Structures are given as C-alpha cells and as structure tokens.
C-alpha cells in the first residue's frame, strides 16, 4: 500500500504510523454538554466499510501528520493532504 505524502512523495505504508479516523473533532471543554461530547469524541467511530478519512503519521519520513482518504474495502488511496492545508494530492 503506497501513501502519497504531500512532502516526500509516494511511500510504502510501513513508513507511517496509523492514528485512525480523522473526522472526530475535539469538543469545547467549556460547553454544557462537554462530557457527552467527549465520550463520543474519544470512543465512538463510524467505522465505515468504504471511503474513510484517516490520520497517518509519516514517522519514518518527514514526521508530519498526513490526512489520507482511503477505501477500507480496497485499500485504494484516493487523496492525501497535510491536515492544516486545503490542497489535496491524488
């Protein structure tokens, strides 16, 4: 499985460390329902069979987090980007 790092180029998935679903966003701890939201944020996942946006750390390369759009059924990587940047590579 090759992942196109936006900085390093196409690299084997072995160079990356997997974090998981990129969708959960850290809730505001000051919000009134923070406890409920933190439960969902920490524990609940869509876990789809198909298109999935996920975070991989390029730990053996540029050591940056890369957001990868990947299919969990076929392992095909559709696009990658650094999470802070809008531009995608495919």
């Amino acid at each position: 499985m090759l992942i196109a790092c936006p900085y390093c180029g196409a690299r084997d998935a072995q160079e990356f460390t997997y974090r998981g679903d990129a969708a959960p966003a850290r809730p505001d701890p000051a919000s009134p329902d923070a406890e409920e939201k933190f439960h969902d944020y920490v524990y609940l996942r869509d876990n789809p069979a198909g298109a999935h946006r996920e975070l991989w750390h390029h730990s053996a390369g540029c050591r940056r987090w890369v957001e990868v759009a990947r299919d969990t059924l076929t392992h095909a990587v559709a696009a990658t980007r650094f999470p802070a940047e809008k531009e995608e590579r495919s």
Partner: protein
Amino acid sequence: MAEFLASLPLGKILPTGLHGVAGAEVTLRSIATQACVLVAGRDRAAVIAKAHSAFAVALCDAPRLSAGGGIEFIGLGPGRWLVLSAQGDLAARLEAACAPDGSIFDQSGGLVLLEAEGKDIGAVLAKLVAIDLHPSVFAVGAAATMTAAHVNLTLWRCEGALWRFAIGRSYLAAFLRAFSCASAEFGLDWAG
C-alpha cells in the same frame, strides 16, 4: 560476507578495509562535518528570506539539497532542514542568521555523515531503500528520508555517482552491516 558478519558482534562497527568480492567497486567513507537541524516557526517565509540574505542560498522547502556560502541545506520535512558545514561555528552562524523565526538544534554529536561512490552504487541502494532512485525521478540534488534495514536515514544524490547519507550515530553499526551486505557482490572499500 554472511560468515564474516556472523563473526562480528551486532553492536560493533565494521572494520575498515576491503569487504566482499575483490575489485572494490563501491567506496564508503565518513565525512567530518558539523550538522544542525533548522526548524522554521510559523513564519516559514521569514526563515527562507533570512537564510537567503545570510548565506545567499535559495532555500527550497522540499526534500532536496540547497547549497550556498559553504553550507548545505537538505529538506527533511515541511519547514525543516538538515544543515551541514565544515567551516566555522555552524550553530552560532545559523542562530545569528535565522533566530527567532527559526530554531537551531546542533546534531553534530548525534549524526554521522557518510559518502558513497561507485558505478554500482545504484544497485546497492536498490537493495536498501524502497523508493525509486532512477535519475528521471530522483535527480542530482534530490533528497529523501526513509528507512533502510529498519534504520532511519536521510540520503541525497550528489554529482556523478556520489551519494551522501545522514544516520543516527548509534545506528551506524547496523547500517554498515546492511550496506556491506548489499555491496558485497561488487566489493566494498570502507574507509571509516
């Protein structure tokens, strides 16, 4: 080579001299140099501009070599460069030029710089790293950080058949084992 390595303790540096078949088509030597890592803060453009005015280098924010003023910058990641120079107090010069937008970390003690050369070096490297090193995609000046035999290394292509590597010092013995095995069929001259 395998029999020889079996006799060499895992943590011991490969002895200097000729290894593998006769002919010594591949040469490997360490380079005496200072090494720093330059990390840009939020304003990456400011660091690039400051490096340009201090060292007359067009600092490239990509995995490749940018050289100027006797200093080499090798892109490690976005806004991060490995900086090499044999002259002067490198850390102090970088600090004077790039702080506070860029942070400087002296890695001279932690890193070993190696230089390999030979007409078969491409075949040796093909056994060690999992990236495409053909000149059409990995031209002179191109750099890459990855692993070889589970050892993290940064390598870049210089002119001709010359390559340079940066490796963590404590991994040198492991890297030399892998490199000597990969180059044994061509003959290796390890100068130390």
